[in-house]
C-alpha cells in the first residue's frame, strides 16, 4: 500500500481514536520532560530548576502538541467534528425551534422529492430498450392543421416509406387489436391486447426473445403460418412459465396460433400488448390496399447510428411531399409526424409535470425564506454567546462555519424527514395519476431520487443559512458584549421584510395558479357531454371474426344479450355501441349525395357509431328531431343513419338534414360505399376526451345494417359494476361459452380517466398552494412578532408618553399591510408573467382573471390580519414601567 494511502487511513482512524491518542501523546511528552528533568538534576540543578530548564529546552508544550496532532488527524475534520457535536447540542437545547425548522424544511423538500420521483419515473427514466433514443414512432398528420393531431398511416404509404427512406435500419408496422384468448385449460376465456407487427418490429425495439424466437420475413406474408410471440406477463399468468411453451397452440379469436417465442419482461411496446402476430397475413383485404384508408396502422423506426432525428424529419417530410404529388386525391396535405418513442409516450405529460415541479420549487423557496428569518432572529438572540467566543479568539470565519453547520444539521434532518414524507405520500400520487401510462405507476425511490434529495438539502443551506450567518457576524460583537444587546441594523430589517414580501408574492402566484386550475377542473366536471355518464355501466364484448363470420350469428348473439340483460332487476335501459363515447376512434367518409363529391382528402370524416337496443336511452342522449332506429330497420330495409347536432351544423348548415342522403363506407366487412338516409338528429354528444380538440360530429348506424363485431354493452342501472360483472359474464357465457366479457367499468370512471392528468395537477397544486399559504403566514407572523419584540422599548416609551393601545396596534398592522401590499404587487406581476405557461393547461378558463387575483388578495389579506393580531395584542399589553426599568 503506498505510504500516502497508509497515512490517509491512519488519519481517518485518528478521528475516531482521538481521546486515546491525546492521552498517549500527553503521557509521552510528560515522560520526555521527566527524563530531561532527571538529566538536569544529575547535572547538579535543583528539582525546580531542572524542571524549568527541561521545559525551556522542550519548548511550548501545547504548540508542539498542536503540530504533532496535525500529523495524526486532519485538523479541519477534527474541528468539523467538534462543531457538529456542538451544533447538535445547541439544537437539542431549543427543541421548539429545531422542530419547526425541520418540519418547515422537510415539507418543502418532501414536496420536491415527491414530484421529482414522478418526473424521474415518467420523463427521465430511459426506456428499457438498447439505444432507446434511436427508436422513432411515426404517424400521419395534416400539415395545414397540425392542431388536429395525428392519425394512423395507410398501408401503401408505409410501403413507400420503407422503400424510399435511407436513415433507418428498420421501419416496422404495427396495429393493436383486442383478441379473445380461449381454450387454456383451467382458465376462462379472457380478452387480451394483441399487436399485428412486421417481422422487423423486434429489431426496431432491439430486444430478442428470451425463450424461442420471433417470426421472420419469410413467415410474415399472405398465406403464412399463424405464429404468435407472447409476453412474459402472459406466460406467467396463463401458463405458469411452462418451459414447454414453444410449439404449443394458443387459441386467439377462435383460431389456433402456434407459440414460437416469449419476449422478456421489459418488452412493453406497443403498451399493454401480450401477443405479437405477423401483420402481412392480413394485408390481402380491399380496405387496407387503399391509400385513403388508415386502418390504425402506426410505424416504428430505428435510426441508423450515423443518422439524426432532424435528418429523419427532413427525409420523411420529403417522402410524404413526393407521395402527395403522386397521389393528390388521397394524400393532399398529408405529412409524416415523426417523434422519438419516449416523446410519443410521455410528451403530453411534460407540461403538467413541469408546472408541478415549478410549484414545489416555489414552496421550497418560501420555506427557505422563513428559515432564513428564523435563523437570523436566533442569531441575534445568541449575540452575547457569539461575542464571548469572538473575545476568546474565535475568528469570524469560525463563527460563520459554526452557524452554517447548525444550518447543515437542520438541512440534513429536514432532508431525511422530507424523503420520508415523499415516500409515504407516493400512494396518493399514483392513485390520482393517469392509468393509461404504466410509467406513472412505476415510481421508485431509487438512487437518483435520493441524490436529488441530498443535493436539494445541501442547496437549502446556502439559501437559508448564508445570509443569517453573515448578518449575525457582521455586527460589532465587542460592542454587543459590552452593551449586552445588539441594535437592529436597517439592512437586516430590510432583508427580513423582503424575505416576507417574497413569501407573499410566491404564495400569490401559487394560489392564483391553483385557483385557475381548480376553476378549469370544475369546468371539465360540468362540461355538457351530451350524455349522462353516471349510473352507466359499460362492458366490452369482442366477437371473433372466425366464430362470427356469418353476420346473422352476430345479430342473434346481440339480441339474446340485450334481452337477457334488460330483464335483470334494476336495469333501466340497455344498448350496444361499437364505438361509444371515449371508446371512439372509427371515422368514416361522409359524402352528401345531393352535392358534388369533394376529393377524398377533403371529405368530411365524422366519428361513426354502430348501435343496437335502447342506445340513446342508456346514454340519456336526447333525440331532437326525427326518430331512432327500430326493429324494422333491417338488412332488407332501406339503409338509415342518425347524426348528432354537431354533424348537422357542420355538414348541413342552415338545413334540415332529415331525409337527406349520404354515402359512406361504414361497414366493417366491406369497402363498398352505400347510401344512407338521415332519419334523426340527436343532441350534441362529446365522443372524444377533452384533451382531443377535434369535434367532427358523430353519425350513428344500426348494427343490423352496418357490420361490427367489437361491441360495448351500455347498461343504465343504479347497481355497482362489481355486482354486474359476474352476471353479465354468466349471461354471455350462456349464449357463447367461449366468449369473455372484459373491461367492465362505469362510464363515470372512463370520463374521470380522461381528466386524470388535470385531476392530479389540480389536487397537487391546491395542496402546494395551501402549504405555501400556511408557510407564508407563519413567516409573516414570525417577522411581525420579532419586529414587535425589537421595538419593545420604543413601544414602551410611546405608551408611557400617552399613546393609546389602538395606536400601537396600528403600528403593527401598518407594517403588516405594507408587506402585504408589496407582496401583492410583486406577486401579481409574477402571476401575469406565469400566465403564459398556465394557459396551456386550462380548459375554458382565461389565464389572466382579475376576479381570481382579487379573491387571492383577499385571502392573503385575511392571513395577514390573522398574523398581525397576536403580535399587536401582545404589544398593546406591554407594561412600559417594566420594560423601561429592565432596559
Amino acid at each position, binding site marked *: 500500500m503506498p505510504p500516502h494511502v*497508509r497515512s490517509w487511513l*491512519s*488519519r481517518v482512524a485518528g478521528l475516531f481514536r482521538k481521546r486515546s491518542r491525546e492521552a*498517549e501523546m500527553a*503521557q*509521552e511528552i510528560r515522560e520526555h520532560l521527566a527524563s530531561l528533568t532527571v538529566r538536569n538534576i544529575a547535572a547538579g540543578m535543583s528539582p525546580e530548576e531542572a524542571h524549568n530548564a527541561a521545559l525551556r529546552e522542550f519548548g511550548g508544550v501545547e504548540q508542539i502538541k498542536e503540530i*504533532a496532532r*496535525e500529523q495524526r488527524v486532519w485538523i479541519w475534520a477534527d474541528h468539523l467534528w467538534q462543531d457538529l457535536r456542538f451544533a447538535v447540542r445547541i439544537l437539542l437545547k431549543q427543541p421548539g425551534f429545531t422542530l419547526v425548522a425541520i418540519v418547515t424544511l422537510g415539507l418543502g423538500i418532501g414536496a420536491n422529492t415527491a414530484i421529482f420521483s414522478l418526473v424521474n419515473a415518467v420523463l427521465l427514466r430511459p426506456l428499457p430498450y438498447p439505444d432507446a433514443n434511436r427508436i422513432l414512432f411515426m404517424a400521419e398528420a395534416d400539415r395545414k392543421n397540425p392542431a388536429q393531431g395525428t392519425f394512423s398511416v395507410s398501408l401503401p404509404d408505409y410501403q413507400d416509406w420503407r422503400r424510399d427512406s435511407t436513415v433507418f435500419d428498420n421501419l416496422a408496422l404495427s396495429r393493436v387489436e383486442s383478441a379473445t384468448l380461449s381454450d387454456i385449460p383451467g382458465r376462462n376465456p379472457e380478452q387480451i391486447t394483441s399487436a399485428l407487427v412486421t417481422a422487423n418490429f423486434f429489431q426496431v425495439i432491439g430486444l430478442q426473445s428470451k425463450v424461442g424466437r420471433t417470426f421472420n420475413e419469410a413467415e410474415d406474408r399472405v398465406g403464412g403460418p399463424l405464429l404468435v410471440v407472447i409476453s412474459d406477463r402472459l406466460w406467467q399468468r396463463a401458463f405458469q412459465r411452462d418451459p414447454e411453451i414453444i410449439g404449443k397452440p394458443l387459441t386467439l379469436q377462435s383460431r389456433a396460433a402456434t407459440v414460437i417465442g416469449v419476449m422478456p419482461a421489459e418488452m412493453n411496446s406497443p403498451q399493454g400488448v401480450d401477443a405479437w402476430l405477423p401483420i402481412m397475413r392480413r394485408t390481402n383485404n380491399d380496405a387496407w390496399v387503399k391509400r385513403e384508408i388508415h386502418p390504425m396502422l402506426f410505424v416504428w423506426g430505428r435510426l441508423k447510428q450515423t443518422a439524426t432525428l432532424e435528418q429523419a424529419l427532413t427525409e420523411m417530410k420529403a417522402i410524404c411531399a413526393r407521395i402527395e404529388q403522386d397521389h393528390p386525391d388521397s394524400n393532399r396535405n398529408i405529412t409524416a409526424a415523426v417523434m422519438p418513442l419516449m416523446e410519443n409516450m410521455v410528451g403530453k405529460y411534460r407540461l403538467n409535470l413541469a408546472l408541478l415541479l415549478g410549484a414545489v420549487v416555489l414552496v421550497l423557496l418560501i420555506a427557505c425564506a422563513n428559515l432564513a428569518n428564523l435563523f437570523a432572529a436566533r442569531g441575534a438572540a445568541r449575540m452575547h454567546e457569539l461575542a464571548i467566543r469572538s473575545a476568546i479568539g474565535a475568528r469570524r470565519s469560525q463563527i460563520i462555519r459554526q452557524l452554517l453547520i447548525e444550518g447543515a444539521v437542520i438541512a440534513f434532518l429536514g432532508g431525511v424527514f422530507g424523503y420520508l414524507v415523499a415516500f409515504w405520500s407516493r400512494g396518493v400520487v399514483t392513485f390520482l395519476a393517469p392509468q393509461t401510462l404504466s410509467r406513472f405507476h412505476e415510481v421508485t425511490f431509487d438512487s437518483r431520487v435520493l441524490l436529488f434529495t441530498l443535493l436539494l438539502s445541501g442547496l437549502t443551506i446556502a439559501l437559508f443559512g448564508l445570509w443569517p450567518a453573515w448578518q449575525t457576524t457582521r455586527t460589532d460583537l465587542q460592542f454587543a458584549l459590552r452593551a449586552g444587546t445588539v441594535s437592529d441594523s436597517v439592512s437586516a430589517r430590510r432583508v427580513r421584510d423582503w424575505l416576507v414580501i417574497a413569501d407573499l408574492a410566491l404564495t400569490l402566484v401559487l394560489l392564483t395558479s391553483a385557483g385557475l386550475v381548480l376553476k378549469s377542473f370544475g369546468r371539465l366536471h360540468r362540461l355538457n357531454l351530451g350524455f349522462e355518464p353516471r349510473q352507466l355501466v359499460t362492458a366490452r364484448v369482442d366477437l371473433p371474426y372466425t366464430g362470427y363470420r356469418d353476420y346473422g350469428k352476430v345479430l342473434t348473439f346481440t339480441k339474446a344479450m340485450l334481452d337477457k340483460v334488460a330483464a335483470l332487476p334494476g336495469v333501466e335501459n340497455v344498448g350496444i355501441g361499437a364505438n361509444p363515447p371515449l371508446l371512439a376512434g372509427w371515422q368514416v367518409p361522409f359524402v352528401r349525395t345531393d352535392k358534388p363529391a369533394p376529393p377524398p382528402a377533403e371529405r368530411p370524416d365524422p366519428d361513426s357509431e354502430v348501435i343496437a337496443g335502447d342506445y340513446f336511452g342508456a346514454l340519456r342522449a336526447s333525440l331532437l328531431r326525427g326518430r331512432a332506429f327500430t326493429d324494422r330497420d333491417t338488412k332488407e330495409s332501406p339503409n338509415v343513419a342518425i347524426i348528432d347536432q354537431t354533424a348537422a351544423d357542420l355538414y348541413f348548415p342552415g338545413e334540415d338534414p332529415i331525409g337527406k342522403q349520404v354515402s359512406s363506407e361504414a361497414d366493417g366487412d366491406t369497402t363498398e360505399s352505400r347510401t344512407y338516409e338521415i332519419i334523426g338528429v340527436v343532441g350534441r354528444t362529446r365522443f372524444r376526451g377533452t384533451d382531443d380538440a377535434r369535434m367532427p360530429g358523430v353519425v350513428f348506424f344500426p348494427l343490423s345494417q352496418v357490420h361490427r363485431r367489437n361491441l360495448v354493452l351500455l347498461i343504465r342501472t343504479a347497481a355497482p359494476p362489481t355486482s354486474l360483472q359476474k352476471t353479465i359474464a354468466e349471461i354471455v357465457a350462456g349464449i357463447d361459452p367461449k366468449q369473455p366479457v372484459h373491461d367492465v367499468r362505469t362510464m363515470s370512471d372512463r370520463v374521470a380517466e380522461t381528466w386524470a392528468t388535470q385531476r392530479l395537477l389540480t389536487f397537487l397544486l391546491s395542496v402546494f398552494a395551501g402549504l405555501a399559504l400556511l408557510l407564508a403566514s407563519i413567516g409573516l407572523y414570525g417577522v411581525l412578532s420579532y419586529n414587535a419584540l425589537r421595538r419593545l422599548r420604543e413601544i414602551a416609551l410611546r405608551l408611557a408618553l400617552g399613546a393609546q393601545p389602538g395606536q400601537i396596534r396600528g403600528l403593527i398592522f401598518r407594517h403588516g399591510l405594507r408587506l402585504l401590499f408589496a407582496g401583492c404587487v410583486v406577486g401579481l406581476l409574477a402571476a401575469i408573467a406565469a400566465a403564459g405557461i398556465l394557459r396551456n393547461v386550462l380548459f375554458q378558463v382565461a389565464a389572466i382573471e382579475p376576479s381570481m387575483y382579487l379573491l387571492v388578495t383577499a385571502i392573503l389579506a385575511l392571513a395577514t390580519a390573522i398574523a398581525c393580531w397576536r403580535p399587536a395584542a401582545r404589544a398593546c399589553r406591554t407594561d412600559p414601567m417594566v420594560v423601561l426599568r429592565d432596559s
Partner: protein
Amino acid sequence: MLYMSSPRLDRELKKGSAELLILSLVEDRPRHGYEIGQLIELRSRGVLHFNVGSLYPLLYRLENRKWIRGRWIEKAGQRRRRYYRLTPAGQKVLAAQRNTWRDFVGAMNRITGVAHA
C-alpha cells in the same frame, strides 16, 4: 529542526536526512523519543542537535506511514515509555534512503574533491 553549525544546509536535505536518522536509529532495537534525541547528539559527537519540538511530529508522521510502530513498554525499574521500532516497510524505505544518501554523498565528494573518510 535539525541544524548544523553551518546555516547553509538545504531544507529538503534536512527533512530527508531526519527521517533517515530516525529510521536507522530504531533499526537495531526499539527506542523511545528521549533516547532517540540523546543518541543523535551523542553519535554525531555534538555536531547534530535535534530540536525536541520537531521530534514527536516526525515520529507520528513516520508512524502514520507505517514505517515505524510505537508500543507502550514498562521495563523493570523504569517508567512506562513508548518505544518505536522499525517495520518491514520501514526496513525497505531505510535501505532505499541509505542508497540515495550514499549516492548523494559520493557525488558531492567527487565534485568537491573531499576524500572519503
